[in-house]
């Protein structure tokens, strides 16, 4: 169908455009600052490969875990009438809005008594790679639930009911109707979660610290580099993160038109 043709609005003339231009200029200036220093010779060694390996592995594990838990939970939320939903969604929204350091602190402190201490005894989260995954998972899972829930809510239950009427099994309905229709939203959830996990700093540093080659990510490595005055290294690492964020934005635009 043809899109409705809408006339142009009246308000928001030159002052608004000027403000927008100033904002864009500011953001460009920040990028230019990074680029200028990244071009200078590095003061120390870069270890980019090991930082990237931990970052990518941690973000990938956290995203997969968040999808495994978050997508079924979102399906349940989207298909459940109001009973008790408000309390649950408020709880689920909390980690996205909460300061990441507070999230990390909550993880660290809950590992001191059962059942957390059993987990710490078995797997070992503090200052270890599983801690990176746990921290990023916790920050990211609510994002997955929210995005996926919106995607599932956009699927008309009548389509599932019609397939049932035609004799389809539940598994077939899930795989052939619900999931394909929710796919753009689910992909967006995965991409957003990965981007957020990749750049996560507060919770990761709180739980897993910065052990080179084990728990040091690009984001935490960047902080260390800046603190130790290795400005060119810091600029390069920051540019790596900018490139990753850019890639995610372009991917999102390709998947859903606009990021959520």
């Amino acid at each position, binding site marked *: 169908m043809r899109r409705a043709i809408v006339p142009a609005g009246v308000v928001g003339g030159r002052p608004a455009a000027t403000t927008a231009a100033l904002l864009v200029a500011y953001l460009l200036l920040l990028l230019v600052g990074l680029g200028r220093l990244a071009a200078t010779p590095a003061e120390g060694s870069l270890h980019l490969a090991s930082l990237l390996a931990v970052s990518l592995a941690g973000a990938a594990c956290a995203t997969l875990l968040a999808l495994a838990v978050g997508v079924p939970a979102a399906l349940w939320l989207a298909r459940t009438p109001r009973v008790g939903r408000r309390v649950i969604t408020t709880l689920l929204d909390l980690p996205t809005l909460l300061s990441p350091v507070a999230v990390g602190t909550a993880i660290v402190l809950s590992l001191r008594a059962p059942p957390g201490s059993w987990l710490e005894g078995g797997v070992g989260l503090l200052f270890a790679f599983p801690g990176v995954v746990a921290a990023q998972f916790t920050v990211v899972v609510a994002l997955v639930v929210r995005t996926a829930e919106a995607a599932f809510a956009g699927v008309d239950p*009548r*389509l599932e*009911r019609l*397939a*049932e009427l035609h004799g*389809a099994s539940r598994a*077939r309905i899930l795989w052939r109707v619900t999931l394909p229709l929710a796919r753009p939203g689910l992909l967006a959830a995965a991409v957003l979660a990965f981007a957020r996990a990749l750049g996560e700093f507060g919770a990761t540093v709180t739980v897993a610290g910065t052990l080179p080659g084990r728990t040091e990510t690009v984001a935490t490595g960047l902080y260390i580099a800046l603190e130790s005055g290795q400005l060119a290294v810091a600029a390069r690492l920051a540019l790596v993160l900018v490139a990753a964020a850019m890639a995610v934005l372009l991917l999102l635009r390709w998947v859903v038109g606009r990021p959520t």
Partner: protein
Amino acid sequence: MIRTPAPSRVSPLLAATRLEVRLPGFHLGPVELAVAAGEYLVLVGPSGVGKTVLLEALLGWHPLAAGSVVLDGRPLAALRPGARGIAYVPQDLGLLPHLGVAENLRWGVTCRGARPDGPLLARLTEVLDLGPLVGRRSVRTLSRGEQQRVALGRALLTRPRLLLLDEPCAALDPHRRREFQRLLRGLHRESGLTAVHITHDREEAFLLGDRIGVLLDGRLRQLATPRTLYDRPADPAVAAFLAPENLWEGRVVGEVVGGGWRVRLVDFPLELVVEGSSPTGEGCLVGIRPEEVMLLHPNRPLRPQVAANVVAATVAELLLLDGRVEVTLVAAGAPLLHVRLPVCAADDLHLAPGSPVRASLKPRSLFLLAVDGVADGAAVAAADGAVEAAR
């Protein structure tokens, strides 16, 4: 004395008994409904009256507050959805936007892991003119009319014993609408399709329905053949929905020798002779469809068949609509009668605002209604006789 039901009576394909649906801010029913095999039943009512909910309650998609739905003698709940042989085309069609036209068409069949019936597919492709569409990669780029045909084809390809249709023509342009209505009618005629079709369009209901149910305020007020509905609306609400133009309060003042009643109107100094069944009580409503009023040349002698109920009046307003003329007549100083007649008839009568005219209200065209509310029994009785009427 207890009588066993007569064995000749055919049990309906689908029957709803005292069906009620209660949702927050919404109440439907009780509704009695029976659909015979091979019947095309149309339910008509204003938007927001709960037509879709009723249809989906027949599918078991909404919990019933009371009553039951029986399919072919067995309670609906006892049958797996896939084993019911019901197909449904919802108002937004329920096509899968991520599949192509051919896959959507087969979807109803592939759902149960079957393959489409080749000859039937070929025939539907021809009848629904799907040939040019089958190659399309996405149903989203089809026009609304094309999507409608794909959705109908998908439903029919499952060889349903019963097809439910929710406003299948509402989203179409007026000129496409009639085309699609004729298509549905043809399918019903040729293949003996059993269908329940809901619409807010009275014309569509009359065009398609073997029987028509009138749904008002969440109740099925009348379920009858189009002709009965046209001649004898069951109660004031149905009359106000189907023929609101000429409805007058009156009182029955006597019986006419040879059948019929004399009714004196309350607001006009007029007495009319009305055929039909006796009203309960004295107060009543008298009505006539604007198409049924005959206008006569003021100075031509009256033929015997139009002798009764001749009213002298003046033309107050004359509207040329698309294909007919609507005339408002004034009698005794008050706007009284709305008349609808073909343009050529109005031309022949040389009608113009202010011109005098005589209107003849044939006793058999008038209908007589009791005003003291509708007994629940009316709808129930209508539904009881339903299956027999449909034979």
